[in-house]
C-alpha cells in the first residue's frame, strides 16, 4: 500500500517478449511470492467471419494517463509490489499479442484480483479502439456490455473480487 510500487507502462506498435518482461518484473520485485499476468491475443475469428488483421487506434497522451490512473487505483486497493502494463497499437495479425497486464505481490490473492481489476478497467476506460479487417470487409469492434458490467462489480464490491 504505502511502499513504493515498481510500475512500468508501455504503449507501442512492437510485439513484446513475455518471458523477458516477466523476468524483469520479478527481478524488480524480488520479495514477491506471487506473479499473475494476463495476455490478450487477436482471435482469428471475429463475430463476422475470418479475421485477417486488427488495427488498434488510440489517443496518445490520454492512453498513458488512463493506464497510469488504473495502475494507481489498483495500488490503492491491493498491497502490490510491481505492475507491468503493455498495450500494442497499430496493425496486428491474427494470434498476435495485444496486451500484457502483470502484477506481483507477497501472496497470490492480491496479484490475482489486481490483475483482473486492471483488465476490467482497461477494457472500459483506456482510449483504445479496435477495427477488424477480414473477408467481411472492415468494422469497428462494438463495446461489450459485459465489460462495463465487470467494471461496475468492482465499484460495488469495494476491495473485493466481483462474483
Amino acid at each position: 500500500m504505502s511502499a513504493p510500487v515498481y510500475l512500468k507502462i508501455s504503449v507501442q506498435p512492437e510485439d513484446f517478449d513475455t518471458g523477458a518482461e516477466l523476468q524483469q518484473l520479478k527481478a524488480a520485485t524480488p520479495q514477491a511470492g506471487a506473479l499473475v499476468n494476463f495476455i490478450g491475443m487477436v482471435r482469428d475469428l471475429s463475430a463476422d467471419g475470418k479475421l485477417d488483421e486488427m488495427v488498434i487506434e488510440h489517443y496518445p497522451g490520454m492512453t498513458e494517463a488512463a493506464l497510469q490512473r488504473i495502475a494507481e487505483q489498483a495500488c490503492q486497493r491491493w498491497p502490490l509490489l510491481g505492475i507491468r502494463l503493455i498495450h500494442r497499437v497499430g496493425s496486428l495479425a491474427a494470434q498476435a499479442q495485444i496486451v500484457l497486464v502483470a502484477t506481483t505481490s507477497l501472496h497470490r490473492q492480491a496479484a490475482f484480483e489486481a490483475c483482473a481489476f486492471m483488465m476490467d478497467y482497461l477494457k472500459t476506460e483506456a482510449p483504445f479502439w479496435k477495427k477488424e479487417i477480414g473477408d467481411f470487409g472492415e468494422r469497428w469492434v462494438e463495446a461489450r456490455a459485459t465489460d462495463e458490467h465487470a467494471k461496475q462489480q468492482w465499484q460495488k464490491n469495494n476491495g473485493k473480487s466481483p462474483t
Partner: protein
Amino acid sequence: MKITILYFARIKEVVNYSSEDVVLPEGIETIIALKSWLSTRGETWQKLFNGSGVVRAAINHELVDDMATMDEGDEVAFFPPVTGG
C-alpha cells in the same frame, strides 16, 4: 473561448478529420452545449450527437460526462466507447 477538438475511431471517420481548433460562441461552456452547437453544422453532426450511438468525451485526457465545463485552451476529445484490451 478557443479550444481544440479531437475525433477518434468511428467518429473520426464520420466527421472525416481528426482535429480542429474552434472558437466557441459566448455561453457554450459544457460538453452538452458543445455537442448541441456542433449538431447545428448539418445532418452528419446532428446524427452523430443525437443518434443512437454513444459519444464519449474527454477534457485534457480525462473522461468526463456531459455536464463537465471547458476552459480556454482545453483539448476536448470525442470518441466511441473504448474497446481495447
